[in-house]
């Protein structure tokens, strides 16, 4: 592979040759020798190979978890969903560049806030070490699970509870055998929705409709399940974005099984 200094040297020589040719006054049709552009670097991986659950190292606060998933719409591409312990939600389209470079473009939503922030990250990945860096290294992630397989609806069936705002609000949702979500919040809103296990990756597609006396709002996104372990109940986390054109808000619903 040509290094940068060699390439620049050749360019200079080429330019010089052209100047010499043009200024020779010979009247001939001497053309400058074309310079072949440097070949595009071959990527060392595809975005699809980044599928999985990626987490920040222990001790990094706020902890971040990113799920890299094939885009649910069926179009080519990978989507990175991120949730931190600060409960900010991000959804980014992931692409590759150069040998091991990454680009990530999308939005971030603050917890409990309306409105989003546009994000654009550059980064890199190393599949041998299962590491990924975004935001020019500010966000370092390690892959802990490839998420191969498919979501199991039976895991999600049951009654789930979550709280918000320092126990100001509680939700109790039931997921039925067909994946239908239903239940109220203590503020008097009702929720309906659907969990659909994906067959290509071990997550669920999630949709939720919130109906309050103040209005109705629809959300769509992704959900993941963790089995009960010891005294810790099973967990089901939904990360969904409002489906209005401006995608004004997002919800992170961290449910535990009752």
């Amino acid at each position, binding site marked *: 592979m040509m290094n940068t200094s060699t390439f620049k040297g050749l360019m200079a020589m080429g330019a010089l040759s052209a100047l010499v040719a043009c200024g020779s006054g010979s009247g001939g049709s001497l053309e400058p020798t074309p310079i072949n552009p440097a070949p595009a670097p071959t990527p060392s991986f595809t975005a699809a190979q980044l599928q999985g659950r990626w987490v920040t190292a222990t001790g990094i606060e706020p902890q971040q978890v990113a799920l890299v998933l094939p885009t649910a719409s069926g179009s080519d591409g990978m989507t990175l969903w991120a949730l931190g312990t600060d409960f900010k939600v991000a959804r980014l389209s992931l692409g590759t560049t150069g040998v091991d470079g990454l680009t990530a473009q999308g939005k971030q939503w603050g917890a409990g806030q309306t409105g989003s922030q546009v994000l654009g990250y550059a980064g890199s990945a190393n599949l041998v070490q299962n590491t990924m860096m975004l935001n020019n290294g500010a966000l370092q992630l390690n892959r802990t699970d490839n998420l191969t397989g498919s979501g199991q609806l039976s895991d999600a069936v049951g009654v789930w509870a979550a709280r918000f705002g320092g126990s100001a609000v509680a939700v109790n949702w039931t997921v039925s055998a067909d994946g239908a979500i239903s239940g109220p919040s203590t503020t008097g809103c009702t929720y309906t929705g659907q969990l659909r296990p994906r067959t290509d990756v071990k997550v669920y597609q999630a949709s939720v409709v919130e109906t309050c006396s103040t209005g109705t709002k629809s959300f769509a996104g992704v959900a993941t399940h963790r089995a009960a372990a010891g005294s810790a109940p099973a967990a089901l986390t939904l990360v969904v974005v409002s489906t209005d054109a401006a995608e004004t808000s997002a919800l992170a*619903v961290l449910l535990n099984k009752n």
Partner: protein
Amino acid sequence: MPELVENFVPSLPPASGGLVVTGDGNGDGMADRLQTDVVSVPFRNTPQVSQHPYAPVVFVTLVAGSTQGKVDTTGSTSAALASVVQQDAPANLPAALDMPLGVIGFTANVGTARTEETFSLYVGAGTSVNGYWVLGNAGVWVNLASAAYGGAMVQEGDKLRLDFKLVDGGEFDTNNMADGVITAQGGLAHMPLSLVGYTPDMPVSGFWF
């Protein structure tokens, strides 16, 4: 409640278009002082009535055995209001919960044990509330004036009407007995309804995504 005081409640014109009756807080065409299941009470416009006993007066009207704010005369049971009082809002309310008139404590004799009774509260439409909130067994305030809990909040004339259901001996009957008496401690309050306004709590099982 002294009958004379009850006559000062701003009357609600009957929806049927009949004559406005003095002292008719719920617009049923009858003075509240003549009804055992309708009471209009002057509250102080403060969440801490013990500290501000001379705050401006606002009237609250409570209807027991209510159908859309009017006494249900078709049912086989009847309810009578024994007391309605204003109390201080609890000091440990969630930050998002604003209870401008404090707690409304009331007792209703509903006759048969385990009876479910519907109540309505009327307050001036300018009062910034979006529900009738009671503290549930799980330690979370619940908006009973919502469809999810069989209630509703509507504007009727220049008043808000908040309908809610309570069961004798049920979760929100604070005397905890199925004895034919419903005792309630709730408040007209405002709190954001949508989950979008809230930060999730960390679940007991820890963070997972």
